[in-house]
């Protein structure tokens, strides 16, 4: 399993890997918002956490469709499916590698983008913390979409459409926890704990559903 993790991490940083693409897309989305909204610093800092979260959500959807499709195209998926380790575990490790390669860079880039949005230190910290906790959930949900669309030649958009509705609760609680950290009356902990619960829930359900879809997608 460690071997699979290391291999997927290596693949993501070699040529054609998706690690940098996600961060660049994230940077692009958030960087153009101030140009569109205008130089109203108060407005920017008010919508900042939401924009950073939406940017992170869209960027993490970007490379998800390749999660199993790349394995299928070169025949590796057949061998992975035949192996006697539980497929759920294999899928979980692949999700973990995918998050480390594409989700974690987004979290690391988010403070810089928070500065673009005129967010203060507390808001930047809160967004980063909620992203660390919430973004794995997007990967686990996305794995289900990627597994369902594995045999489709252009499954990318379909994966996004399948995944987005399920990822909406993650977005809602991620953003509301970020706001709660800056705006006084709202408590930070309840939405943050729900966000954690969502991640744990999808970490359990996502790989199982994806494994089921992969088994039945065989052709």
């Amino acid at each position: 399993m460690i071997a699979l993790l290391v291999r997927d991490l290596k693949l993501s940083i070699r040529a054609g890997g998706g690690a940098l693409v996600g961060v660049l897309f994230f940077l692009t989305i958030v960087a153009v918002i101030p140009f569109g909204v205008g130089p109203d610093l108060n407005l920017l800092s008010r919508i900042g956490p939401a924009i950073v979260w939406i940017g992170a959500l869209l960027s993490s959807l970007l490379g998800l469709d390749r999660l199993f499709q790349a394995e299928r195209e070169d025949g590796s998926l057949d061998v992975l499916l035949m192996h006697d380790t539980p497929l759920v575990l294999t899928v979980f490790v692949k999700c973990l590698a995918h998050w480390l390669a594409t989700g974690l860079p987004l979290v690391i880039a988010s403070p810089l983008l928070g500065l673009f949005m005129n967010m203060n230190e507390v808001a930047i910290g809160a967004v980063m913390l909620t992203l660390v906790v919430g973004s794995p959930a997007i990967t686990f949900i996305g794995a289900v979409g990627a597994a369902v669309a594995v045999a489709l030649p252009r499954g990318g958009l379909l994966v996004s459409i399948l995944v987005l509705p399920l990822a909406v609760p993650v977005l809602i609680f991620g953003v509301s926890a970020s706001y709660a950290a800056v705006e006084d009356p709202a408590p930070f902990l309840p939405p943050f704990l729900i966000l954690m619960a969502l991640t744990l829930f999808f970490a359990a359900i996502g790989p199982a559903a994806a494994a089921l879809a992969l088994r039945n997608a065989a052709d």
Partner: protein
Amino acid sequence: MLLSAEGLAARRGEELIFSNLSFDLGMGEALVVTGRNGSGKSTLLRVIAGLLAPEAGRVTFSGAGVEPGARPREFCHYLGHRNAMKRELTVFENLAFWKSFQGGSGGALDIDEAAETVGLGGILHLPYGYLSAGQQRRFAIARLLVAHRPVWLLDEPTAALDADSDRMFAGLVKRHLAEGGIALAATHQPLGLEKVQELRMTGFSGVNADVWE
């Protein structure tokens, strides 16, 4: 060890590709599956590999040290049309990954030995995508050597291989059989094996009411 199939039938879409297909293969035995294109050779191998659910019938693998109820696919190597190697990684990284992932104990070669065996010892450091189609195929064959599995399922194994490599591969299969392994190959090339059964696939068997239950 005994790999047996009883009354197998498989379907692709609406078409029943074959039905009521049975065979038994013991240690050191090989089955060569022949037939024209589209007659179901690959489908049969994928059913045995557990990658396709059979429409009817079942595949079982039994023998010393095999728990009852174990899935046959865990004892199989499957060499399909695609090589299951990553173009971006070096040959060594690819083989090291499969060796570690597939695990398996005795009888496995280490990576250098496996590369020597397929006659490509010196180029382990190259990215897999740089190699020619024949070299890629030979390293895909080396994957079968770095982890031990008693059953080899080979789908057109010698595609893209030259005459020398054909002989090298036939030698590998012979050695695998001599060590008590089992091989199933869908191929047009004579592998030069003794003690080999031949299964001739006749193609679309049409709609058979018995297996549609």
